[in-house]
């Protein structure tokens, strides 16, 4: 004895395998091969959700991915909770736990139902006109309330523990959809020897053929034909078959995104298996065989549980062995629904009436229905329905000469509706193909393609099975335009007249007060669409956003055409004039994990480390990210916090000696007879007069005159410059230099090489730095007399070839050792050992920042923001005198670039020495202001200073240089901080220490 609505036999389920599952805490049984939806229906469960806004009771509308109502949350364990899954696509497995959504406290008694009763206050766009007063209520009342009420499922709170794989693939033909058109295309393509990928979003290939119990193809039943064809394709090594794989996006140049689901249908998956696989397929040719989606009808009360698409009812019966009801009314505009009625009738279901919207009803299928004793009513319409948690009755009427009359109420427990088909043109549209309106089909079908792509079958408006198979074969052939059907499929099936319907059904006057739904998932009714056009929204894109029709997770699969038709009628223009909104990927939702792949956690981005990284790690350094680099920020000892560590490191550098890894800075070798000329044209400085063996602080501008990068440039040969850049700027400096070299001045004989990763750089800074190095350096006289500040030369250190610079970013006597990167660590360790006698101390980027700030040295990107000129930063002195031109020079001539009240770099000292300003804090000339305040600049760098004993800051202030010694104010939440404007050089302004 089969419980509920399950048929005693039939369907493609495995009746030998019982499967237990739970829905909303209750236990049920189904069979292997069921979906959650079919199993619930078999158990007579029809209420499966509450609608988005009105919380109306809802049941399944469809049987596939277009389902708008039956969204559930499936829980595997605490960390694996997936909301918003369509129960029609959830394959049943033993132990499955699913819950309905958007209801409290229960599905049967949902408090949110009050929204339906108060629906007059919740029309489309109501939130644009409400929640405005009082303003204070937003934070504490409106926002929390709206956030709780919004949405359908609840977002997971745990990190996704599953693994997701990604794969690239190339093929000759990618076929999307394995229904009759797709299989025929695959056979055709495979025959020609092509490499084929055939994918389908469901677990079984066959599409509409899996529910077709009457057709005969080449002497076989549809089901047997599918089995044979798929079997032969599976044997072909050049064919890849992907089930449970959705083509979710069509990208330029025939790149298609596929989302393959590997384990969600299993009770338990092997630990090594990724949950999903993302395929990026570059196909020489694409065949879209995506089928068509049945159109629901728009009439009052069309959303009650038990009112569903006719084709879906047929699917539940023929594929899953489930009757959707025992007493069914059919409302249809075409012949297909009659086959559903006949199939249900044969399964013992009473068909109470078939309401046909057409005035005249003839043909093989309607006649078969009449012969079976069914009440076929032409010229019908629907005025209303009844039923609370399930439909219990429907009011039909006749339409005669434009008059609606003879209303009659009929008892029923299910209503099947069919408004014809809407070809699935989502992927075609994403490919930027042009759609064209077909009046006969009352649909948009693919017009001209933009990519190498063909549509075949129902997705281009071809519905007869024989034609669909022939169309698929043509599309899959090597040269579709030349294809002559070598193989004609012999198809035996009842002819059917498809007739699509658009817009709301004719209504009595006055019409029912019940709502007529157009978009089920977002609760959009005909009244909402009428309101939008009344309020002046004419573009379908505006109507969509104002009413939210088509904006739910189903992206309007069952609503977009009806919505468009209703808007067209309201605006009194032709349907094609209204147009469709833009189709966007993904076709159905795709897990975030699939897109992330392995780019998570430690693998999110590549990590760049310097040669001394393991040494710093061993010292338990605290690291910071600078771009993709890991840099030691400070080296805490014995429980120090950052403040204490940095204070100690700074003192060590200023008083003795410090060592710092500067390997991350960019290095570019500019080489060639025209190297100096090229440098002159690019950087602001004069390079011709820089002698070999000397360095100069270089500044690079953009053509608009603003500082782009800076760094020490060394002339290591007559035709060779070693240019350094900021750590983050290295790639874009090289790109800018290459741009000019290749495309502006190709006549210059110069070439560029990045040597950032080739040189390890060890900075040794402090009054004792020379003594440390003298014991290690060979082949170079680095005495004070022989080697002044800004010298460069080659030598050896620990037997390793070395380029040594006497440069300082700290303001102390300092050097930078460049050795080939492979020797970086060993040379670092040698310097560290040799420096012990002098109290050498390793320091990190934080100390580096403090020490340079005390000297007023800018850091591009921190003290500059792309709007700072050399003069703003106090660096006019670096501009080469008498240079006719360089990149950015013309822009510096603009009057606005010389204005005296431009933001200029100055120093700031808080009057209270204990206060360290916040970086980014704004600066005002007047204290005690209330918003909106008059502000004159901001703090760019700020630190607790080292030697000065007070905090120091750099800031960009309007007319800053004219404000020396002025008192300014930094407004903070606790009150204004008084500051004094100073020179940006806090330490050793005469430069005695750096020149020691």
């Amino acid at each position: 004895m089969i419980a509920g609505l399950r048929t005693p036999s039939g369907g493609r389920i495995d009746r030998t395998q019982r499967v237990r599952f739970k829905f909303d805490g209750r236990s049920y049984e189904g069979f292997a091969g069921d979906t959650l939806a079919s199993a619930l229906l078999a158990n007579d469960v029809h209420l499966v959700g509450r609608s988005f806004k009105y919380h109306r009771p809802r049941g399944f509308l469809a049987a596939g991915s277009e389902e708008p109502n039956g969204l559930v949350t499936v829980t595997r364990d605490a960390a694996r909770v997936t909301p918003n899954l369509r129960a029609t696509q959830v394959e049943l497995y033993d132990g499955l736990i699913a819950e309905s959504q958007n209801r409290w406290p229960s599905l049967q008694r949902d408090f949110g139902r009050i929204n339906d009763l108060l629906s007059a206050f919740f029309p489309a766009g109501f939130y644009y006109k409400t929640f405005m007063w009082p303003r204070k209520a937003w934070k504490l009342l409106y926002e929390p309330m709206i956030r709780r009420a919004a949405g359908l499922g609840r977002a997971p709170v745990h990190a996704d523990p599953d693994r997701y794989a990604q794969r690239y693939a190339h093929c000759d033909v990618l076929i999307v959809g394995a229904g009759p058109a797709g299989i025929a295309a695959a056979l055709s393509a495979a025959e020609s020897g092509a490499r084929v990928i055939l994918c389908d979003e469901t677990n079984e290939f066959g599409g509409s053929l899996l529910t077709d119990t009457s057709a005969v193809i080449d002497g076989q039943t549809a089901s047997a034909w599918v089995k044979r064809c798929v079997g032969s394709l599976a044997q072909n090594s050049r064919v890849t078959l992907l089930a449970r794989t959705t083509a979710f996006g069509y990208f330029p140049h025939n790149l298609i995104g596929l989302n393959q689901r590997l384990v969600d249908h299993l009770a338990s998956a092997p630990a090594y298996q990724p949950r999903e696989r993302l395929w990026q397929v570059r196909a020489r040719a694409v065949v879209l065989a995506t089928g068509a989606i049945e159109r629901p009808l728009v009439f009052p009360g069309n959303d009650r549980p038990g009112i569903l698409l006719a084709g879906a009812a047929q699917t539940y019966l023929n594929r899953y062995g489930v009757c959707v009801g025992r007493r069914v009314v059919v409302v249809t505009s075409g012949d297909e629904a009659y086959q559903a009625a006949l199939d249900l009738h044969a399964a013992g279901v009473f068909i109470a009436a078939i309401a046909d919207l057409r005035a005249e009803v003839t043909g093989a299928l309607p006649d078969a229905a009449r012969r079976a004793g069914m009440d076929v009513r032409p010229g019908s319409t629907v005025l209303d329905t009844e039923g609370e948690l399930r439909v219990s009755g429907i009011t039909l009427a006749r339409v005669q000469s434009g008059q609606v009359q003879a209303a009659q109420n009929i008892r029923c427990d299910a209503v099947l509706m069919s408004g014809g088909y809407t070809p699935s043109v989502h992927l075609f549209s994403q490919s930027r193909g042009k759609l064209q309106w077909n009046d006969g089909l009352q649909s948009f079908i693919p017009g001209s393609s933009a990519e190498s792509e063909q549509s075949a079958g129902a997705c281009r408006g071809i519905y007869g099975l024989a034609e669909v198979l022939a169309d698929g074969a043509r599309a899959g052939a090597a040269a579709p335009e030349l294809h002559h059907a070598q193989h004609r499929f012999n198809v035996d099936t009842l002819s059917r007249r498809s007739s699509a319907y658009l817009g709301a059904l004719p209504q009595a006057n006055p019409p029912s007060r019940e709502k007529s739904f157009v978009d089920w998932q977002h609760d959009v009714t005909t009244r909402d669409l009428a309101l939008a056009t009344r309020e002046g929204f004419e573009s379908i894109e505006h109507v969509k956003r104002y009413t939210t029709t088509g904006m739910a997770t189903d992206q309007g699969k069952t609503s977009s055409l009806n919505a468009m038709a209703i808007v067209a009628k309201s605006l009194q223009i032709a349907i094609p004039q209204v147009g469709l909104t833009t189709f966007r990927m993904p076709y159905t939702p795709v897990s975030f994990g699939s897109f992330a792949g392995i780019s998570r956690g430690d693998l999110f981005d590549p990590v760049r480390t310097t040669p001394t990284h393991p040494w710093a790690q061993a010292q338990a350094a605290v690291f910071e990210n600078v771009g993709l680099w890991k840099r030691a920020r400070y080296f805490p000892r014995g429980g120090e916090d950052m403040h204490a560590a940095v204070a100690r490191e700074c003192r060590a550098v200023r008083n003795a000696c410090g060592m710092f890894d500067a390997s991350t800075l960019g290095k570019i070798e500019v080489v060639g007879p025209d190297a100096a000329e090229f440098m002159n044209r690019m950087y602001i400085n004069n390079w011709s007069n820089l002698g070999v063996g000397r360095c100069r602080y270089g500044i690079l501008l953009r053509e608009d005159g603003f500082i782009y990068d800076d760094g020490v440039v060394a002339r290591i040969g007559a035709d060779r410059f070693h240019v350094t850049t900021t750590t983050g700027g290295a790639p874009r400096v090289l790109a800018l230099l290459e741009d000019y070299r290749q495309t502006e001045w190709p006549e210059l004989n110069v070439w560029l090489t990045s040597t950032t990763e080739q040189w390890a750089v060890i900075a040794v800074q402090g009054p004792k730095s020379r003594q440390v190095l003298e014991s290690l350096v060979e082949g170079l006289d680095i005495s004070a007399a022989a080697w002044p500040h800004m010298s460069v030369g080659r030598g050896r250190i620990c037997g390793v070839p070395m380029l040594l610079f006497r440069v300082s970013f700290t303001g102390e006597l300092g050097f930078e050792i460049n050795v080939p990167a492979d020797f970086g660590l060993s040379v670092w360790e040698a310097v560290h050992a040799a420096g012990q006698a002098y109290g050498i101390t390793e320091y990190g980027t934080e100390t580096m920042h403090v020490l340079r700030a005390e000297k007023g040295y800018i850091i591009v990107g921190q003290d500059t923001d792309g709007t700072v000129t050399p003069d703003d930063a106090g660096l006019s002195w670096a501009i080469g005198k008498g240079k006719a031109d360089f990149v950015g020079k013309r822009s510096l001539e603009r009057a606005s670039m010389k204005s005296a009240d431009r933001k200029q770099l100055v120093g700031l000292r808080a009057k209270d020495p204990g206060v360290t300003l916040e970086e980014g804090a704004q600066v005002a000339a007047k204290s005690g202001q209330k918003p909106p305040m008059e502000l004159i600049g901001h703090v760019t760098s700020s630190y607790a200073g080292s030697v000065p004993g007070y905090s120091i800051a750099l800031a960009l202030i309007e007319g800053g240089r004219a404000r020396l010694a002025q008192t300014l104010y930094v407004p903070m939440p606790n009150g204004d901080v008084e500051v004094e404007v100073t020179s940006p050089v806090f330490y050793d302004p005469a430069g005695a220490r750096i020149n020691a």
Partner: protein
Amino acid sequence: MLLIVCPYCGKRPEIEFTYGGQAHLARPDQPSQLDDQAWAEFLYMRSNTKGVYAERWRHARGCGRFFNALRDTTSDHFLAFYKTGEPRPVLSTSPAPPAQSVAARTDAAASPVTERKI
């Protein structure tokens, strides 16, 4: 992801390239001779063509070279790829390319800017 044909390396995916903006923009020979208006034109004014657009790409993750391309901005179809320094190809089906250079838009007599064929 677009497929781009580097004239030196062949057909490669877009991820290997960086975009280089409008093509055939020559830096004026004597910037000091331009008034602010003309200089601003060079700095900031770019065409925003709906249709065939001449643009630059750089094979940043490959040979590192700049080159030019003609792309239809409505369909993302590439119609031609050509090396730096080569003139913009004349396509058989398209109309003559609109004048986009600074020289063409400013009064040629007043401005000493010359157009380079890069």
